[in-house]
């Protein structure tokens, strides 16, 4: 198990390195930051000075190594707009996005898996068909439209929930979380639901397909031949088998929810990372964009690492195949 984790970490480091090169090349090497940094009326001497100060006269590979060196220290430059450190700017917004994504993930798991299994067990009844049709709708609804419709219904018409913003938060380790303050929960409901709709449908369909496949397996028939109750067969034998693909997909989806909750955050004016990214792109705030990309890369790599480890606890064949090699 230890060797397995160690090797996965090595692979993750390599992925981060490769992505750093890509991000560096695409953002730093293309276009000229001098044009943005200096006033348009600056003369040639001022330009040369700035180029030398920023190290832009050095060969690309030296610049890249400098970038990597700074990256290793967690230094990705200062925001042009806010003047503060880009990484801490983004990380300051991380809790808002993180809790949104986690609530959505929990919703997806605890709504999607039971619904999908129910549909899989009753695939030929109206229950199964309704669930599966519903999941297609959940799949195809555009995120922003669903969010706006929710605002119309629950905030404007019924006035049950606030239409946007983050509301009161509670503090943990100096970070602000809405989850810790019940007064902030109403603000969290609609954005989290909006973010979750697609994931719920996805998990439902995965659980449905997995259940239908598992039910045809000999081990289910053997379990019935042992005289086990339906609850035990579905809750243990089937569930544990279908969890493997679902965990993989949810892991990837958690990453994408954190990184790309942009639309939902924009619709609900949720002050998360996505909102910051959109604003930074609009203002050409390069350090923030680069820092954002690198953080997302790190996040994805980390989540995939977690999924792989979780995987090996779910599926003994993965663990042992690795231990043997």
């Amino acid at each position, binding site marked *: 198990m230890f060797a397995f984790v160690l090797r996965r970490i090595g692979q993750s480091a390599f992925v981060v390195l490769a992505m750093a090169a890509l991000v560096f090349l695409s953002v730093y090497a293309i276009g000229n930051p001098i044009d943005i940094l200096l006033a348009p009326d600056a003369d040639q001497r001022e330009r040369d000075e700035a180029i030398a100060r920023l190290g832009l006269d050095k060969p690309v590979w030296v610049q890249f190594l400098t970038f990597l060196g700074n990256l290793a220290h967690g230094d990705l430059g200062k925001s042009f707009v806010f003047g503060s450190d880009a990484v801490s700017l983004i990380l300051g917004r991380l809790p808002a996005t993180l809790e949104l994504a986690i609530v959505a993930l929990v919703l997806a798991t605890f709504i999607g898996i039971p619904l999908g299994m129910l549909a899989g067990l009753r695939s030929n009844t109206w229950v199964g068909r309704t669930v599966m049709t519903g999941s297609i709708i959940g799949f195809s609804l555009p995120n922003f439209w669903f969010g706006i419709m929710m605002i119309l219904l629950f905030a404007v018409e019924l006035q049950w929930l606030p239409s946007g913003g983050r509301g009161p938060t509670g503090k943990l380790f100096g970070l602000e979380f809405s989850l810790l303050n019940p007064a902030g929960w109403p603000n969290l409901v609609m954005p989290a639901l909006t973010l979750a709709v697609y994931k719920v449908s996805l998990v439902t369909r995965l659980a449905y397909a997995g259940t239908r496949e598992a039910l045809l*397996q*000999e*081990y289910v*028939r*053997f*379990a*019935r*031949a*042992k*005289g*086990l*109750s*339906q609850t*035990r067969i579905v809750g*243990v*034998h089937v569930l*544990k*088998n279908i969890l*493997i693909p679902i965990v993989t997909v949810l892991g990837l989806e958690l990453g994408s929810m954190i990184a790309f909750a942009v639309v939902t955050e924009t619709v609900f004016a949720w002050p998360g990372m996505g909102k910051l990214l959109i604003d930074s792109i609009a203002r050409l705030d390069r350090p923030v964009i680069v820092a954002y990309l690198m953080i997302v890369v790190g996040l994805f790599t980390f989540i995939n690492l977690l999924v792989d480890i979780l995987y090996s606890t*779910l*599926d*003994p*064949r993965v663990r*042992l195949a690795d231990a043997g090699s």
Partner: protein
Amino acid sequence: MSATLEVAGLETHFVTRAGVVKAVDGVSFSVDRGQVLGLVGESGSGKTVTGLSIMGLVDAPGRIAGGSIKLAGKELVGLDERGWRTIRGRKIAMIFQDPMMTLNPVLRVDTQMIEAIQAHEDVANDVARARCRDALGRVGIPSPEERLSAYPHQFSGGMRQRVAIAIALLHNPDLIIADEPTTALDVTIQAQIIAQVQKLAAETGAAIVWVTHDLAVVSGLSDRLAVMYAGRIIEEGPTAEVLTRPGHPYTAGLLASLPINNPRGRPLNQIPGSTPSLLRLPPGCPFAPRCGACQDDCTVTRPPETRFGMDRRLRCFHPLEASA
């Protein structure tokens, strides 16, 4: 005293869009305590569905349409799911064909064994675990205590089948249905498994229905032999008699196609054609189109079941030889 298992006029039908498939069409047999019945037939003859019907495990769209299954005198047909569950695993156990598929790949062997005990008895985990360990030891698995914590993929095919047998024997069932349990195994392992089941059945007095397509396997194992064709038993009797003096041309054909009964270097004898579709059975004897001894009356009406000799049953208008 009634037999352990009495099946009478069993009919299991599958309702499909193309029509009703009578996979089991009026099958009757009985097995006594400690006896082994070999249920032989080609693929699609209905032998597996017969076994599943006795377990109440026929999946929709299939259902038991008629007949009776009595276990030690108790009628099983018509039981609800709860009633079946008290029978399955406790009174009747089943061993399946492919040991690679019957154990759940993501659950440890002890989990899968302990749950089988706790499905029927209210016992503590450690007591159940000790019983599982003993059961594994009984079927010849070395260091059972360690193996309990292993996953199925850490066992070879033969060992997995032993685990499945150990699970089947956990409650000392009255009846074991073995659905081709040795087909997927090596010949040497086959022999070991067969010997193991024989020995354990003799110890516990369980009756066994051994479903197979392999005459060689049942010849050394079963007390009686029932040959199935197109959902019916076409010949039934004591194994030695059926094998030495087959009454039905189909049984004779099966025997003739065994390699051991063929001279070396010549093409093997075979039965021409293949099993008929159960949706389009010919009006007469279902075997008539492939039968070498077919006569005019064979294609008109179905041959009824007749007594044949002392202790045999047959469905054929023109038996091969008068039994002594």
